[in-house]
């Protein structure tokens, strides 16, 4: 065995955020390595750094014994280090066959060769063989945008393996694939890769997949590798259990029992049934049922990419509803213009805050009442300041001068301003310092006591479990648990 990839002391930061620190990895030929870690732990950044998509801040990267630091994506790919993508990057308006034809053409030609005809019989035969190997021949003439998600994922990976790479990096091969399909697709994939004797490194969230297919695990936490060990050993590792697997995940269960039963009247403020939503041609939500009873606080819990934000945007009218109903009380929201929602009393806090940069904190909070011309605005503002005195303190400061946590509070206050009937909060505790997150929970607690109807989306319910009357767990675009 010899080393395919050697990475030493790799560093990268984006502003103040450290995305990679002191990364040391040696990949031996023939290994299958799994990369695990929470959202934002630096897994995809690692792949982007090694493949030349991002310039590293420091360190060395050697591939097959030669330094590839500073080479372009194109050059590194040509050396035989290829990758696939978390969101499949296929050419959406071309057929599966043409996608692979292009991949083979680029892999086999260079310079003047690029001017020779693409469609050759021998090349077509190689494409057909590749289609068969990845078991997507049935979809040969279907264009990319019309493919089922799983097939698109396989096509994405098939395109990455056209060069017969020495090392293949797969970014979440099963994300976006339904739970029923995931093993079938991984079996096809791992079989095909074994035939080509490819060394594989893949990022994965799903521990069932990791335990089943991986020899060795690299666990990332906040840009660092906290564990590098054979799979079984890594699963027992304390750091991995704490920071990756989320040991605290079930801690909420006990308190949850106490919370249930507190739910009030049977009336539903928000009722969503059988909701299908696609972004472009990609189906994101599949048959979602969810309801928020009046005066209750509900949670929509699921990891990144599970469909939480898509759900929120669909309710807010930013995405069109393919199938199903969305109702606010008696109002059919799917038939209501997007901007009417604020007038109806829905307040929305987007995950990424989105404060208008030219305005002050207070002006941002007042935006909805200026638009809806709601009366009793001052009263409401005073109530909000009572709930969040910190916002009153920095109300005259410009939005861009606020810290991330402060911006989050302003976005929250803005949602409260018009959210008299329903509040939709997309990850209020995400991406802010623990002390802010804790404060956020206190505010939610106060809000709950006031009897507001709230739907909170979070990637885990560690902090808010005790507040929730009802929890919907979303996975791969469907509600898998409702408790």
């Amino acid at each position, binding site marked *: 065995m010899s080393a395919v990839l050697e990475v030493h002391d790799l560093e990268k930061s984006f502003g103040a955020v450290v995305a990679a620190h002191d990364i040391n990895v040696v990949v031996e030929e023939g290994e299958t390595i799994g990369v695990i870690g929470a959202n934002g732990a630096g897994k995809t950044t690692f792949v982007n750094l090694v493949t030349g998509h991002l310039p590293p801040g420091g360190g060395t990267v050697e591939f097959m014994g030669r330094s590839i630091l500073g080479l*372009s994506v194109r050059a590194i*790919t040509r050396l035989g280090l290829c990758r696939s993508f978390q969101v499949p*990057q*296929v050419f959406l308006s071309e057929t599966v066959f043409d996608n692979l034809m*292009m991949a083979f053409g680029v892999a086999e030609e260079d310079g003047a060769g690029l*001017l020779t005809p693409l469609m050759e019989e021998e090349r077509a035969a190689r494409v057909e063989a590749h289609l068969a190997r990845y078991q997507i021949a049935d979809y040969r003439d279907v264009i990319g945008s019309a493919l089922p998600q799983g097939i698109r994922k396989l096509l994405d990976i098939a395109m990455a393996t056209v060069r017969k790479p020495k090392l293949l990096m797969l970014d979440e091969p099963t994300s976006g694939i339904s739970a029923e399909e995931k093993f079938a697709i991984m079996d096809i994939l791992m079989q095909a890769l074994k035939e080509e004797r490819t060394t594989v490194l893949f990022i994965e969230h799903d521990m069932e997949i990791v335990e089943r297919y991986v020899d060795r695990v690299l666990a990332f936490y906040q840009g660092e590798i906290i564990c590098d060990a054979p799979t079984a050993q890594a699963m027992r590792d304390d750091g991995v259990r704490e920071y990756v697997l989320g040991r605290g995940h079930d801690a909420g269960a006990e308190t949850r029992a106490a919370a249930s039963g507190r739910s009030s009247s049977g009336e539903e403020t928000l009722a969503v049934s059988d909701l299908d939503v696609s972004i472009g041609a990609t189906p994101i939500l599949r048959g979602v049922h969810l309801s928020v009873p009046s005066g209750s606080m509900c949670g929509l819990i699921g990891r990144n990419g599970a469909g939480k934000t898509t759900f929120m945007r669909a309710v807010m009218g930013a995405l069109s509803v393919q199938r199903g109903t969305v109702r606010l009380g008696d109002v059919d929201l799917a038939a209501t213009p997007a901007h009417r929602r604020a007038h109806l009393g829905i307040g929305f806090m987007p995950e990424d805050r989105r404060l208008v940069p030219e305005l002050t904190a207070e002006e941002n909070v007042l935006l909805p009442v200026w638009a809806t011309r709601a009366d009793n605005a001052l009263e409401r503002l005073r109530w909000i300041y009572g709930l969040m005195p910190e916002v009153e303190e920095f109300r005259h400061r410009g939005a861009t001068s606020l810290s991330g946590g402060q911006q989050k509070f302003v976005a929250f206050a803005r949602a409260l301003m018009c959210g008299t009937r329903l509040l939709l909060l997309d990850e209020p505790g995400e991406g802010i310092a623990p002390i802010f997150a804790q404060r956020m929970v206190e505010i939610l607690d106060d809000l709950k006591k006031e009897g507001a109807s709230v739907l909170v989306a979070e990637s885990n319910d560690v902090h808010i479990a005790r507040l929730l009357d009802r929890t919907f767990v979303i996975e791969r675009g469907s509600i898998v648990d409702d408790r």
Partner: protein
Amino acid sequence: MTWRRDKTLWGLTLGLAALLLLNFVVPDWFTNILTLSLARGSVALGLLVLWRCGLISFGHALYFGFGAYTVGLMSRYLGITDAFLTIACGVVTAGVLAYGLGFLLRQYRGIFFALLNMAFSMILYGVLAKLEELGSTDGISLEATTYLWYAPLGAENKTALFVFAAILTWGVAVLVHLYLRSTLGHMTTAVRENEIRLGYLGYSGERAVHAKYVISGLLGGFGGAVAALTIGHVDPDSMVYWPVSGDFVFIAILSGTGNVVAPFIGALMYELIRTYAFDQFPGIWQLIMGGTLLAIIMFLPNGLWSLVERRRSRGGPGSADRLQAREEEA
């Protein structure tokens, strides 16, 4: 290669034959319209090469004008009137310019690409319109065209030029068609939709755009050179000003990007509508042109060629073609 089964090559060749025969039955002024259609069609063909990658230039009058003025200046200062030499020089100078500017333009996409092209074309316009040496706004009149030792005059020259231009354009169209079948030529959706993926397949979007830009520049120069010889005069307002670039984009959208034949059909339609409108309704010819363009944008977004394609896919057995056509219609 399947030369014999390539419908486009047959179509081009039949088209050439038809044009050459047509020349015997139509009046002189119509011969001129045909030659100009070939010239403008060539420029639109260059835009097709870019448009397939999602790029539009609002300044291809730059290359059209460059080709035309190369011919004009050769006639005025060097006394060279040979069609072979002047057209070759027009093409080459435009190609060199496109190669140079390409290093810059290949980094831009979308509206910035379109506008930067426009800025460069307006720079050329500014120079041509103001410099006496280059004819300023009056432009330059050309001496009669010669073909090696053959020097026809009057109507005979018009016919000779038409035959010459038709054969050359046939050659150009065949070359572009062959290019479109190559790996680089197929690199269209890849550039338009996903340059990151293209990079991870092992080629860079910028290189692809540069190559395509040079091809479109060469075609622009060719069209300009032929137009200069046809009109016998070059001037900035009718060859380099921004509405000229707009007209090329007009022809490109009228034609659709389906096939190399399309821009020539589109250019002929354009010339016919324009001539007819100008002749019959001189007061509102622009209104008719604008209305046509709006109608195309609203009701035939894939251009005239989509009519041909729709008919073909209705009858043809190719399931893949039909699927794609259906997808495009949706």
